[in-house]
Every structure is written in structure tokens, then in C-alpha cells.
């Protein structure tokens, strides 16, 4: 009985793509304003500077289940939001929310919106596992999360889970109360990484590098995202602050780029939700009707034959 209940809870959260466009729209659907997600391809300082101000980092990696010797903080400071992860598929959303709820609203010009503010107030007094449950049971959050599910045109009969399946895990890094914390939903509490010093990012970067080094050199499935301020707002702020016409022109151009980027994101998200299989099949039918399908098949067959012949003894 318990197992089926757990399975039902797990099944009610779908997997979503870990992409900045998905995450940004996800939080916007939850009512958050002024925040954007940016994907980082390296830990270089320059990259991090380019997207400043950074409110938090989210790191995705393949989970190997090895034990971490660092101890969790026994008594986390009261204002620090840490929730234990209860559902595997919700790990991305959980990390995002952990980051956001630890952002200092006053200084960062981030508006959390109704849903998340309520969640924070509600969960403030709860222990970490109950907080996880609170997130999981939140209808609004789950609906927003599931709205990004990819359409599954073919429901496969076979069960997919194998021992070799990669399990990916999200971990959040946030600065709070002068220290840098690592929030891992599978641990019992936040991990204190040290003092913020001049830039909390340096501390966080060191911790992430350590994690990356622990993997074999061939492992490249990492994903790093930064929770940053809405780029358009940042540029607007700079535009207001400068009077140099040359700079203004450059900034205007940047702003146009950002606007275009947001439009692209919106398009991509629409595409993500759409099932393209009917289009594919109808396209094939149209091609067949107009006698254009056979040439395409032949061309593809030639290509397949030449790659098969050219393939060195595999």
C-alpha cells in the first residue's frame, strides 16, 4: 500500500528538460518576476561576471550514490530555506525553489510572487522533510512543473528502468547570512561551504570544481545554471546610468538581443509542448502523394549503405 502511494506521488511529477528557457518560464508561471536562468558553460570568472548579479547556482550532475564526507549543518540559521527532496522527478523544481526562497527580496529586486511567498511563510516553521512535502503537495507548483512535460506520442509497454540508467541530481548553491551554503535535497541539511568573503561565487566555484574532479575524466554530463537577474532589467539599469551615446547604442543593441532571446525561448517552449508525430506522418503522406518520397528514401538508403560500407570493423 505504501509503495503504491509513493509510486503515485512519483508519477504525478513528470520529468522536464533542464534548460534555462524551461526554468525561466516555469518560475514566471509561478509568479516570480525579475529573475532569469542562464546556462554557464564554464566556471570561469569572466562568464560569471557576464551574467551578474547572480543569486544562486544550480548544478546538475550524474548521481553515483557515493558518500559525501562533509557534514550537514545541524542547526541551520532560521532564515535559510532548506527542504529535503521527496520526489525524484521534482528535483529540478525543488532546487530552483530552494534557490529562490533564499534570495533576499529586499536587496535583489526579485519579486517572489504569491505562490512562493505563501510557501515560504507556510514552511518556515516546518522541519526540512515536511518542507519537501509542502512543495510536493503544492498544486500550483506541480501544475506549473508538469506543464512543461514533453508529449509522449508513444506510450511504451516496457518498463524502462535498468540498472544502468543514469540518475541525475540537482544541487543548489546560495549565499545567505554571510556564508555560502550547498543545498542538497538528499542530505539531512545544508552544508556550510565557508565565508562569503569578497565574492561568494569563488567559494561556490571551488566546491563545484571539487565535485567535477571526483568524476572520471570521461564524464561530461554536467549542467550548470545561474539564477540571475532578468537581463533586460540589468541592461535597462545600465542604460539609465550612462549618458555616453556610444555606450547607449551598444546597450540598446544588447537589449534587443535579450528581447529576441526571450522570444526564442517562448517559441521553444511552445514547440516542447507540441506533439510533432502527426506532422511527420502527414508530411510523409504528402511527400508520397506528390511522388517525392521515393527520392528521399533512396538518398537516405544510399547514405546508409555508404556509411555501412565505410564503417571500419566496428
Amino acid at each position: 500500500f505504501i509503495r503504491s502511494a509513493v509510486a503515485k506521488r512519483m508519477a504525478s511529477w513528470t520529468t522536464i528538460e533542464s534548460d534555462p528557457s524551461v526554468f525561466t518560464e516555469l518560475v514566471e508561471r509561478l509568479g516570480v518576476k525579475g529573475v532569469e536562468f542562464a546556462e554557464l558553460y564554464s566556471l570561469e570568472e569572466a562568464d560569471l561576471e557576464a551574467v551578474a548579479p547572480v543569486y544562486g547556482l544550480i548544478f546538475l550532475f550524474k548521481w553515483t550514490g557515493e558518500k559525501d564526507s562533509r557534514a550537514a549543518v545541524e542547526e541551520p540559521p532560521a532564515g535559510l530555506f532548506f527542504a529535503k527532496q521527496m520526489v525524484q522527478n521534482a528535483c529540478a523544481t525543488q532546487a530552483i525553489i530552494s534557490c529562490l526562497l533564499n534570495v533576499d527580496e529586499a536587496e535583489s529586486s526579485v519579486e517572489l510572487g504569491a505562490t512562493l511567498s505563501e510557501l515560504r511563510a507556510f514552511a518556515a516553521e516546518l522541519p526540512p522533510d515536511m518542507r519537501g512535502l509542502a512543495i510536493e503537495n503544492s498544486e500550483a507548483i506541480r501544475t506549473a512543473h508538469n506543464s512543461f512535460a514533453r508529449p509522449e506520442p508513444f506510450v511504451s509497454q516496457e518498463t524502462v528502468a535498468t540498472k544502468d540508467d543514469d540518475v541525475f541530481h540537482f544541487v543548489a548553491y546560495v549565499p545567505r547570512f554571510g556564508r555560502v551554503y550547498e543545498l542538497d535535497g538528499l542530505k539531512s541539511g545544508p552544508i556550510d561551504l565557508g565565508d562569503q568573503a569578497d565574492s561568494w561565487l569563488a567559494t561556490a566555484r571551488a566546491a563545484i570544481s571539487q565535485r567535477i574532479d571526483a568524476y572520471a575524466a570521461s564524464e561530461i554530463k554536467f549542467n550548470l545554471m545561474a539564477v540571475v537577474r532578468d537581463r533586460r532589467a540589468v541592461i535597462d539599469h545600465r542604460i539609465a546610468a550612462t549618458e555616453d551615446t556610444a555606450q547607449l547604442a551598444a546597450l540598446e543593441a544588447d537589449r534587443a538581443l535579450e528581447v529576441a532571446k526571450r522570444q526564442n525561448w517562448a517559441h521553444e517552449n511552445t514547440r516542447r509542448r507540441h506533439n510533432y508525430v502527426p506532422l511527420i506522418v502527414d508530411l510523409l503522406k504528402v511527400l508520397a502523394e506528390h511522388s517525392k518520397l521515393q527520392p528521399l528514401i533512396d538518398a537516405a538508403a544510399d547514405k546508409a549503405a555508404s556509411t555501412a560500407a565505410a564503417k571500419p570493423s566496428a
Partner: protein
Amino acid sequence: FKAGKCETEPRAGGKVWVKPLARRGEVQLVKVDELVHFQWRDRTTLTVDASCDHMVFPGDAKFEKVETGREGDRVYVLQFGQNASRRFFFWMQAKEGAEDERVVARLNAAMNGEAAAPAPATSELGALRRLGTSEGGDEPAGSPITLEGLQSVMQNLGLPPAQALSTDALQRAVAGALSPPPLSLSDVVSAEALDSSGVFDDDAIVARLLAHLPESQQTRDELRNVARTPQFRQALAQLAHALRTPDNVASVFANFGLRPSADHADPIRAFLAAIADAAPPADRDAPMDDAPPDDLPDFETPRLQTSPTLPAPRLLLFAPQHQRRPILLSSSSPPLSLASSDPLLRPRSSPLWLDDDDDDDDVHTPWRGTRVLRRRRFGASLRLVPTNEPHVTDVNDASPRGARRSARPRVPSRAPRAKSAQVKSPAARAARPA
């Protein structure tokens, strides 16, 4: 790559205490889907132990001897390089320890991706085996092909014997002789191919396809670009994957109303062939110009179907005379399955069979030897078998006769006849030489 050994897996009780298990087993390296798996197999039950099936990447794992401090112990450990806690112990079960080193060296070499000694065969044979595994996706690694068997196969295929060929030529020859390599759906519907086909320039086509795009994106530009989007490619890959899983293929076909034909081993080709067959040409001329006139309201446009499971031939042969025409026209069974270019069977305002009033009297009488002449005519003109064989056949051919006999009009209604003919004719057809 199978390396047969005899070792058994002990259970590690606690961190250091390693206890051997008494089960007799073996360790093998198996290539599954391009990845190398290290597996332990129980020799008594001959099943692979699912808890001991590990993927190994080159440089990732080592198999080495463990110092137990006792002479005569032959305990080895499979150690994964980076993750110190991931290791598995085995004990050698071969009677003599002399072979251990060599076998272990081979195992390590194979795990780390070095060229392992192939099975005893010529290099062509090795190439052929690899070709075999790369072609048939579900073929287990290392199918046992002997050189003699290969040569005899080659001779049958009319190819020169193996020694005369180089590996490449051999590969190509065999690839040509055997089934063609699996087709990639993504290549067929690649963006470049679509662009060059000009399919998006046609307004009618665009209008039809736009309906399948998301509502906010129904523009021609989007249509032109959609084949490049990752979401489209993903859907293609999912479709291809569904077609390649044997369990799902039938339902995919059924879902799109397609009839699978058995002509293509590759499910992708079969799918494309079924689509091609099902699509009525948009710009067909002449043959279809005298498409069903008004007095044949129920006649459907013939659709090309190559399905061997097509229901029985039309029963116009056996219909009572007065019912002949209505049966033909209003029958709910699919129309004749021959190519519509067949002059004998295109739907015309005056079908052939209606021209010969003389023969109609004989149509529904029981079969008798004296009717050979008429049957020949019917048999020739109404070759109702859904294959691509020539239309004119010998009357002495088994199938029509068999079908006719079974379809003897015991009851003057179509349905039972349809069923019995249906049951008989596939069997009879199967009996016929292909």
C-alpha cells in the same frame, strides 16, 4: 566478446571480509549495443546474474589479483578506477591456476578497448561478424559463422569465394546480398532533403501541413524551419524507436491506418512503404479520369495495398446473377488490391465482368471440370490476390480453384462465403509456389 572462464562471485560481508560463494559460474564480457558489459553467469542455471552486470568503459576498470596472504588463494577483484568503493571479488574456479594470468590479461585488454584476439577465423570472417552485428540491431554479439558455411552461402549467392575478396569488398558484397542496411528515418526527413524537394513551396501542401503546427506558430516560415528544431528531431527519433521495438510496431501501424507488408525486414522501410502505398497520388491522370460514375456510388477509389492479410477476393464470381452488380459495388470489403494501372481492373463504368452475360449463368453453379474455359477467363481477368505477381495466371493454379471450392454458395448470402473464402485463400496462396 566472450571470454569463458570459471569464477564465482563471493559476497562481501562487511567491508573487508570477502567470502566466496560455492556456486559454479563464469565471467564474461559481452558487447551490448556498442557498450561492453562485464557479466557473471551461473553455470548451473545458465542465466546471467542481474546484480553482476556492469558497464565498463576503457580505462575505467581493472581486474587484478588480490593478495590474501595465503598461498594457493586465487582471488581477483574487479575494481572500478575512480570509485574506490566499487569493486567486486571473484575466485577462480579453473582447476589449475596456470592459465589465470593469461586469461586475466586478455580480460583487462578487452575491457580497456584494446584489440582483443578475435575468434578463430580469417579477418574477413571477423569483418563479416562485425558487419552482422552492426546491421541487425537485435542480433546477439558473435553469431557463430563458420568459414565453410560462409563460403557455401557465398557460392549460393553467386559471389566469389571469400579468400579472393578484400574485407571492404566482402562487406559491400554481403551487405548488398543480404538485407539492405537499416534506414535512418532522420535521414529521410532531414532538413536538407526537405528543402531540396521543394515541398514547402506548394501552397496547397503548406496549407495542409500548417494545421499540424502549434496554433501560435502556423506560418510557412515555421514550417520551413521546423525540421531543424530539436523537438521535431526528437519526435522523429521517438517514432523511429517505436517502429524498431517489435512489440510496438503493429500498434504504430494500426494507429495511422497503415497496412504493413512483409516485404521489408527493416521496419522503417516497411513504414515508409506502407505510407507510400496508402497515399493516393494527388496528380494521377488518365486511369482515374473515369473514376466512379454516379451509378456506382459505393465504389471506393482503389487503394494500393500490398498486405498479405487482405481479406478474400471479391465474391462477384459467386454472386447470384441478380445480385452481381450490387455486391461488387456495395461490398464492404476493400476493393481489389492490384495496381490501379492494371487495365483490367481499373474501376470503369463498364467493368469487364459485366460484358460477358453468357458466363453469368455459370457463376454461381458448383464447380465442375467442364467449366474450365470460363474459369480461365475469370481467373485471368480477376486475379484477386494481393501480391505483385503477374495478373494472368494459369487456371490450373491451385489457389483460385481452392478458393472457389470453399466458397461454394451453400447459402445465398455474402457473409459466410466471405469468411470461408478468406480462410481458405491465404492457406491456398501459401501452398502455391512463391
